[in-house]
């Protein structure tokens, strides 16, 4: 989030008045996010740097929030508890998390401003102070300019209790002129009179509520009007992105830690007190707001938030509610500490358990608050939420030289830092870090937040990434910066090649034959008045606030100005009916509300009678009992933790976790094996392959049998996620308990010695000393690359009705997302490189309708060898899946198919060291280990036409001079051939010679 802020600030630093940002998402509008904090950061960065400016604004926000907490608390409690509340805000773990872990500057800024605005709102509603209305309005304008959602929702949860409380108080306070007819005999018409009197009590305040409401709407609409216009004209229609804050915190304990336990922190101990204290006083409406926020913040732990929020449940991030709850609780927490230090609670503890317990409680709570705040602020140091910081300079330099910024780029495995990279370069990224602004169907049709972290959203995320990497020419995407090995196989088999590592260890991958960006990139133009509003009003809100505060502070008191003395207003309020219903109010000191209706008071008074100091022995006994309870609790928790880590399931989980994170030495500790540690590590290294080197453990299913004499059998299914798909691997483990600790029994032979110790071979390499583009405007100045001469076999279009082709939306998205999510259409064939040079081949298939209109278009993903030696032939299969294909609701609308085949010289990915020794054995005749062998098989009809092209990745690596057994995938059963006319086109094509041998199986592989 921090980097997103700095990126946005960088935008305003570069072009304040232009809302169109081309560096993300093939262009998006900055109207999509209120700009104040970003503009403020941009302004401060003029005299410093972007990170410094960000920290400065965040620091200001923190101070404003602390002040706001004090001012807000004063509305509900006295000065001393309010002071404690402000102090607790400083050591609040939720604020520490918001600042240090999430870096949410707009949230912090706006909550601070909002809290400062609320006392003015109260003052206007309660006292009809017109000055307060202006001050509050000005501050709310600042809040709206900072973050509209917080302002909007904050009004409900923060301002709502204020409005309700003021109205309730007004309702209870009688006017001096009221006649309650207490001395008269009750008559029916008294009811109407009495009701009118009650209404008249609240009518002026209600009127002021209306004035405030209308003012708020006007402020919200006007301040960020271009945002509302944009959201109306370009509504968000994307599949909901999962967020852990909507999970059940009992099942997803990590989410529970991040979005519940850490933000609540020690305040969770105070929550029952706060609710008791709130509901038993006139602050019960604020307590209701707190209870509701706390409930909504529990996410999917209970069904209640989903029932309450309905469709919004799947759009909102619910941690926001917890954050607000931890702010609203602060006045009560202040009361709690006041009571503990100076009041009844402290006295009660001292009376029942002794003074030492009172000191211990205060000290323990205080220390816990501080410790947890420090812990939270440094949480990212202990638990990595983001990849390690990457030095961006080599990437920035790479993009700046040799016209590399003539193409778009993509980052993988950078995390939020990708925004920081974007802020430092002029080059364009195909994606971005603000998902509400996404409009590309490849992004909006899958529940993926960012391509950069596609692996964290499993198959849907990787599907979206595959769409981009398969069709890079659509986005002028030529370079991918990879900071995570996980993605290498996908890049390689999708036709990309590695250019090597930069100084910061980031790998650069390139795709040949991608056209450069056009000279003029499409830009969305907005009317000048909107750009003017966006550039002036949000930042101007600060000046408006400054002017209003100066005026109301310096000018109004000095000249004793009053709006009510204006002749017009004076005349208006002279009218009785207006004065009576809208203006007249009672300014007497508020009466203490009756507590008679609080029936539970009688019960609580019985349960907790008034405090009486007790004799010393009794305190000692109570204190000892409490100590025993604390120690017992510790023992129970410790035992539970031990059971959690020492069980067979826990050992299996720990073993696989160690394998997943490549902590191989640690994984050895969970094993019972005859192998030495060295032999074990060598055995592991010889496993190699996609699962060992490029996979992430997605799910682990453990089923254990009964334990018999310290032995147990466990059936484990590990689902490994790779960039090329999911691999479920089932294993049966024998567990043995040794010295009370369960271990997994690994019974394997020590790795055998190599067949030959010295292997020789010759390899042919190429170097192309030419520019990277084919003939084009750019190439006119820099020379040209040849177009490869290619020959394409007769083709077939096939249909597999049962195969999923898109991410079917969940029920809550279904109303917005329409599509055909099953039924794969594929074009199968073979292509030969007839050029005198190795060629990078790109095959694009287009499905066309009756009128020749384009229905869908895609390249071959990984079912082909993208780089071909001269005279080499590869089968290929173009699969129509993803957003384009999902949009074709009726496949009968497809009238024809066009295949575009093109190639350029290449010198990459030409390793063909794998040999098919027999039908089921592969052999590595080369000098390098093949990490991921890939087999593509071709199946023909009786008349020799290609019917289906299948492929399989082998899970194990093959070292030089080693062999590996394999099984080919079966033919799909429900395959149908579609009889459609096919047109083949391309820059240099030769006719397919009848009799050209078609390989039934081709083999290649990725070597790191």
């Amino acid at each position: 989030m921090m980097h997103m802020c700095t990126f946005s600030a960088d935008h305003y630093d570069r072009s304040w008045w232009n809302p169109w940002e081309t560096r993300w998402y093939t262009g998006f509008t900055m109207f999509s996010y209120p700009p104040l904090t970003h503009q403020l950061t941009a302004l401060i960065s003029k005299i410093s740097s972007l990170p410094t400016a960000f920290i400065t604004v965040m620091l200001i926000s923190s101070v404003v929030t602390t002040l706001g907490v004090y001012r807000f608390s004063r509305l509900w409690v006295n000065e001393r508890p309010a002071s404690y509340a402000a102090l607790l805000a400083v050591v609040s773990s939720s604020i520490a998390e918001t600042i240090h872990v999430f870096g949410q500057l707009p949230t912090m800024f706006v909550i601070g401003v909002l809290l400062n605005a609320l006392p003015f709102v109260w003052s206007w509603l309660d006292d009809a102070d017109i000055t307060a209305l202006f001050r509050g309005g000005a501050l709310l304008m600042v809040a709206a300019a900072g973050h509209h959602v917080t302002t909007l929702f904050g009004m409900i949860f923060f301002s709502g209790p204020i409005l309700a409380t003021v109205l309730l108080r007004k309702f209870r306070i009688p006017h001096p002129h009221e006649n309650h007819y207490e001395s008269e005999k009750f008559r029916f018409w008294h009811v109407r009179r009495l009701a009118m009197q009650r209404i008249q009590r609240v009518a002026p305040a209600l009127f002021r509520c209306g004035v405030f409401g209308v003012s708020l709407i006007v402020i919200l609409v006007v301040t960020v009007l271009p945002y509302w216009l944009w959201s109306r004209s370009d509504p968000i229609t994307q599949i909901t992105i999962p967020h852990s804050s909507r999970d059940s915190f009992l099942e997803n304990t990590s989410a529970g830690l991040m979005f519940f336990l850490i933000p609540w922190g020690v305040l969770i101990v105070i929550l029952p007190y706060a609710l008791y204290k709130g509901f038993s006083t006139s602050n019960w409406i604020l307590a209701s707001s707190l209870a509701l926020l706390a409930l909504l913040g529990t996410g999917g732990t209970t069904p209640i938030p989903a029932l309450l929020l309905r469709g919004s449940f799947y759009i909102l991030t619910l941690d926001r509610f917890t954050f607000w709850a931890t702010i609203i609780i602060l006045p009560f927490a202040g009361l709690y500490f006041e009571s503990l230090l100076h009041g009844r609670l402290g006295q009660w503890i001292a009376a029942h358990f002794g003074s030492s317990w009172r000191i211990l409680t205060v000290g323990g709570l205080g220390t816990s608050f501080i410790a947890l705040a420090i812990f939270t602020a440094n949480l990212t140091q202990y638990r990595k939420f983001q990849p390690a910081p990457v030095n961006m300079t080599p990437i920035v330099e790479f993009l700046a030289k040799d016209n590399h910024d003539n193409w778009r780029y993509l980052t993988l495995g950078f995390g939020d830092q990708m925004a920081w990279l974007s802020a430092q370069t002029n080059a364009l990224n195909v994606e971005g870090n603000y998902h509400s602004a996404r409009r590309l169907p490849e992004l909006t049709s899958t529940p993926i937040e960012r391509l950069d972290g596609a692996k964290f959203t499993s198959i849907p995320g990787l599907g979206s990434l595959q769409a981009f990497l398969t069709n890079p020419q659509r986005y002028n995407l030529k370079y991918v910066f990879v900071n995570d090995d996980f993605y290498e196989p996908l890049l390689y088999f999708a036709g990309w090649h590695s250019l090597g590592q930069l100084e910061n260890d980031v790998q650069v991958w390139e795709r040949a034959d991608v056209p450069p960006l056009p000279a003029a990139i499409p830009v969305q133009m907005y009317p000048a008045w909107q750009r003017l509003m966006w550039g002036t009003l949000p930042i101007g809100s600060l000046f408006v606030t400054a002017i209003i505060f100066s005026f109301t502070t310096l000018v109004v008191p000095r000249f004793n100005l009053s709006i009510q003395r204006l002749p017009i207003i004076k005349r208006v309020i002279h009218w009785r009916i207006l004065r009576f219903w809208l203006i007249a109010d009672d300014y007497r000191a508020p009466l203490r509300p009756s507590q008679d209706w609080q029936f539970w008071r009688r019960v609580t008074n019985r349960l907790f009678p008034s405090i009486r100091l007790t004799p010393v022995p009794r305190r000692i006994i109570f204190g000892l009992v409490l100590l025993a309870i604390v120690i017992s609790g510790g023992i129970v928790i410790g035992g539970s933790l031990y059971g959690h880590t020492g069980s067979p399931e826990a050992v299996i989980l720990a073993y696989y976790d160690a394998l997943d994170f490549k902590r191989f030495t640690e994984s050895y500790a969970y094993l019972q094996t005859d192998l030495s540690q060295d032999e074990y590590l060598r055995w592991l290294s010889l496993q190699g392959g996609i699962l060992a080197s490029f996979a992430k453990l997605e799910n682990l299913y453990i089923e254990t049998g009964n334990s018999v004499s310290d032995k147990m059998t466990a059936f484990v299914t590990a689902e490994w996620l790779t960039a090329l798909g999911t691999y479920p691997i089932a294993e049966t483990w024998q567990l043995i308990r040794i010295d009370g600790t369960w271990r997994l029994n690994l019974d394997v032979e020590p790795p055998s010695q190599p067949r030959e110790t010295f292997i020789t071979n010759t390899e042919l390499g190429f170097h192309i000393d030419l520019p990277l583009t084919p003939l084009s405007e750019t190439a006119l100045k820099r020379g040209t690359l040849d177009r490869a001469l290619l020959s394409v076999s007769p083709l077939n279009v096939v249909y597999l009705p049962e195969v999923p082709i898109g991410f079917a939306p969940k029920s809550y998205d279904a109303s917005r997302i329409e599509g055909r999510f099953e039924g794969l259409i594929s074009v199968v064939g073979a292509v030969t490189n007839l050029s005198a040079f190795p060629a990078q081949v790109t095959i694009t298939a287009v499905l066309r309708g009756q009128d020749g209109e384009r229905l869908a278009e895609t390249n071959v993903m990984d079912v082909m060898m993208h780089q071909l030696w001269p005279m080499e032939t590869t089968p290929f299969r173009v699969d129509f899946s993803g957003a384009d294909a999902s949009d074709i609701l009726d496949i009968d609308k497809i009238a024809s198919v066009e295949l575009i085949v093109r190639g350029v010289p290449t010198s990459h990915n030409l390793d063909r060291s794998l040999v098919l020794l027999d039908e089921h054995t592969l052999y590595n005749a080369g000098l390098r280990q093949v990490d991921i062998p890939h087999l593509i098989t071709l199946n023909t009809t009786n008349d020799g036409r290609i019917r289906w092209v299948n492929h399989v990745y082998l899970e194990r690596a093959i070292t030089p001079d080693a062999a590996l057994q394999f099984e080919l995938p079966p033919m799909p059963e429900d395959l149908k051939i579609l009889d459609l006319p096919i047109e083949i086109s391309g820059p240099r094509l030769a006719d397919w010679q009848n009799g050209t041998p078609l390989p039934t199986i081709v083999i290649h592989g990725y070597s790191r």
Partner: protein
Amino acid sequence: MKQLWFAAICIGYMIGTTLGFSNVEPPNIDGAHIITAGDAWSVNIRIPNGTAGEQVVGVLQNGFKTIIAHLTLGTGGVANWQIPLGEITQSGETALIIYYGKEEYRQSLQVQPGVPTVVELFTSANSMPAYGEGSATIMVLPRDNWGNAADNTSEFQLDSLYPGGQHNSNTFTYKGGLGWMTLHSQGNPGRVRAALEYGSLSASLELTQTPGEPQFASLRLSPDCVFNDGRDRISLVATITDSHGNPVTDGTLVTFSWRHGHGSASTVDGQATLRLPAPTSHTGQFSYRATSGETHSNTVFLKITEETCSYD
């Protein structure tokens, strides 16, 4: 009746006024209508009924460039607009727009390219098959000081020198300032040098003539007899040549095949080698063959034996 007369008079005035305004004569533009890119240009703009001191706005839309001038009418309603050298640089049709009051007048101006000062040669392919089997399109783009493509009247000749020493001279066909010609290969593989000279202008490029497609293939096996202990490795060496007996281009893929298996290797100087372990399954004869494109080699046989291999 009076009202009718009054209405008729009003309508008459309205029609007369409208016609009077619509009869404003267009301005008279007195200047060259065809100029050369980079030249200075002067034009007199006469506004009929224009009076001295009135303002006229002249706009010249030349390519991506817009030149705007605020001109003051002199005696006789004439304003003079002078555009200096190097301002009008883009060849093609240029729009001249005159704004006078609320009226707007348009006229076009033809800007011709200047004399070529730079010439570039480029090709659709850097290599082509030798022996007259291949060709490449060579293009020439002469441009003036301002980057405008020259007129189609340019006449350049391309001199080509082939690997065997043959010399050819070809002319280009032009359209829109771009000239092109098809250069056919001649003789054996090697380098083709193409050059163009015209006055002080010159340009050159080089192309490569590559060998043709595989036409002949022969396969050798070494050794041709091994023990069946699975410890031996065999080498398959294929020699591939084109129709003229020259080695095929480096990197040509050769597929070696045998019973239930195959492997591949690329040629260097016409030879491709694959080394692999000898079969271990059983004794007997194993056959191997090499294929490149549509060309197949002879079949070679490997003898697997339990006894001693005899090398006669």
